[in-house]
């Protein structure tokens, strides 16, 4: 595409397709992502954004296509495979176990254990307090089940989980959907910081203004297919909106 040559991409999604019954949710989509880059995924509701990234996070198995990480073809058949490749995901649905507390959710699937293999609750809570202190200093409800948390607090637990485990590839599906203005700014700062650390980030967001600010490139989808990928700096918000609604690349970039 139009991106300058920057060596091997961190992630390459090539010709990914996935159908649910009769619906072609993702239709031969190709996107790549470089280290230290934020790629925005845009599109109307039901365009196939979540489905596409779920193929990368191992939640779904694609029908066809291939995934390369650092240039090497990989098989991602389940979320464990994705984690093994340092892919962390914040799902649109947050994917928290409501009956467990923040630290149990943060460490779910990767619990800290002591010498005899027992879960080290205190250690986990201490770590949780540490990272939450950085991400959301107002967070206090460490021993309550997450069902007792506000939407924003739940979101910060999901974000903490993705950030804590040294992800190299981060997928964020509408991470600020439930957040107030202040928390949204905090997430924006976090994304900038992670980017500086060299992570590659896929960011799904309906807020075009925010995409303009946070992303380097934007990939627009419509009805499962890719409309185009543009350098965010080259387009206006209206151009992006046009791509989402009309499903056409803006005139001045149509080449």
């Amino acid at each position, binding site marked *: 595409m139009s991106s300058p040559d920057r060596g091997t991409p961190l992630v390459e999604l090539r010709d990914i397709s996935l159908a649910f019954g009769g619906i072609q949710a993702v239709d031969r989509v190709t996107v790549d992502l470089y280290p230290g880059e934020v790629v925005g995924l845009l599109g109307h509701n039901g365009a196939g954004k979540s489905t596409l990234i779920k193929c990368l*996070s191992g*939640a779904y198995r694609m029908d066809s296509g291939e995934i390369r990480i650092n240039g090497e073809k990989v098989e991602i058949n*389940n*979320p*464990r495979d994705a*984690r093994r490749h340092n892919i962390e*995901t914040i*799902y649109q*649905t*947050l*994917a*928290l*176990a*409501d*009956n*467990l507390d923040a630290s*149990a*959710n943060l460490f*779910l*699937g*990767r*619990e800290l*254990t002591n010498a005899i*293999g*027992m*879960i080290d*609750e*205190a*250690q986990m*809570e*201490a770590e949780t307090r540490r990272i939450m202190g950085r991400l959301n200093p107002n967070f206090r409800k460490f021993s309550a*089940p997450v*069902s*007792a948390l506000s939407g924003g607090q739940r979101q910060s637990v999901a974000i903490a989980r993705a950030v804590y485990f040294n992800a190299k590839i981060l997928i964020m599906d509408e991470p600020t959907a439930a957040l107030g203005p202040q928390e949204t700014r905090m997430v924006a700062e976090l994304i900038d910081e992670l980017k500086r650390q060299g992570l590659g980030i896929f960011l799904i967001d309906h807020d075009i203004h925010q995409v303009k600010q946070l992303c380097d490139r934007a990939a627009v989808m419509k009805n499962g297919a890719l409309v185009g990928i543009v350098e965010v700096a080259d387009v206006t918000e209206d151009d992006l909106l046009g791509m989402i609604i009309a499903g056409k690349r803006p005139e001045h970039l149509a080449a």
Partner: protein
Amino acid sequence: MTAATAHAPATQKKKGVFAALEIDTRLLGMIGAFVVLCLAFNFITDGRFLTPRNIFNLTIQTVSVAIMATGMVFIIVTRHIDLSVGSLLATSSAVMAMAQTAILPDLLGVGLDSPTVAALAIVIGLMTGTAIGAFQGWLVGYLLIPAFIVTLGGLLVWRNVAWYLTSGQTIGPLNEYYLLFGGINGTLGETLSWAFALVATVAALWALVASRRNKVAHEMPVKPLWAEGAIGLLIAVTIFGFVALLVAYQIPSGRLERMFVARGEVLPEGFTQGYGIPISVLMLIVLAVLMTVVSRKTRFGRYVFATGGNPDAAELSGINTRMLTVKVFALMGFLCALSAVVASARLTNHTNDIGTLDELRVIAAAVIGGTALSGGVGTIYGAILGALIMQSLQSGMAMVGVDAPFQNIVVGMVLVVAVLVDILYRKRTGGKA
């Protein structure tokens, strides 16, 4: 339960105390209900209900259902159900009975009452139960057949496999070492019982101290010292009180005499001995501790609760929820077999109707004990207490002379009311039903 609401008016002052103790108010309610129940029966029966003898019998009658109820907690927490436990118990029991009476003695060339036969029969039974449970779990987890259907089928299948294996016959008498697990035929006696009380108390107190230390080390908030002390004292009093009751039940002199004769000795004049803790009850206590540790301190237990709370989240967190389902059902099968040992040893025979309707008792015990059918919520101690409440209700009514149909009508209503109270309680405390 009911007692929790009864205490309501006095909460303002007491709230502080309970909050500091961090005792689960739901547990408190259940214990309250249980105590009220016992006192009521004791009053109606003119003190016959709370005698050492009756309490001893109550505990050994509870063990079989309670063992299975601990496994049912995991099943229900993961949003499944197991209707086949009574039948699985019967098949395991049939296999063990056949093994120890018909197969093993010939195979090994030893007598019917050899300890090796008992041990091998139990191992075979436990393996049978575990394998059947794992198979049902595979049907549920991998082939995605609803657990309700798989185990409803299992209810019929395993009940009749047991029938087929034994041709419907009562099999017995069973191996005398095997009978040690039945209750009254295998007890620790006075000295060992007191030793157990001491060890258990020390272990419980040590666990309290260790947990506090760990919290302090990570600079986490801890309870005030007096609260820890009060809990420690409560634990010690409960353990010693319970053991004292079981020791107070005296072995009849005729039976003592036979025991001495069997050892080639003479019963000394004025010698008495209490039964002490039955081995089956000891097994249940150890199991309860193990299962509690599993549910709270191991990854397996954590994943059981996570899966029950949100199966999708668990899956997305990299938990192999299908394999987890197999493991949970395998554990249930294992516990059915363990329960079969206790049940058939208590009857001293394998009978064709052993374990009939146990699935309902076991599910009821778990549910009365606070396990939510919507998944994600449940405790081991709750289920055991639930089993104890059910059994007390049943025995108490029998002792009072309530007609059999009314007994079941009452038990059925109690189950429904208990769940209603539970729902109301959770609404008030803001939890999810």
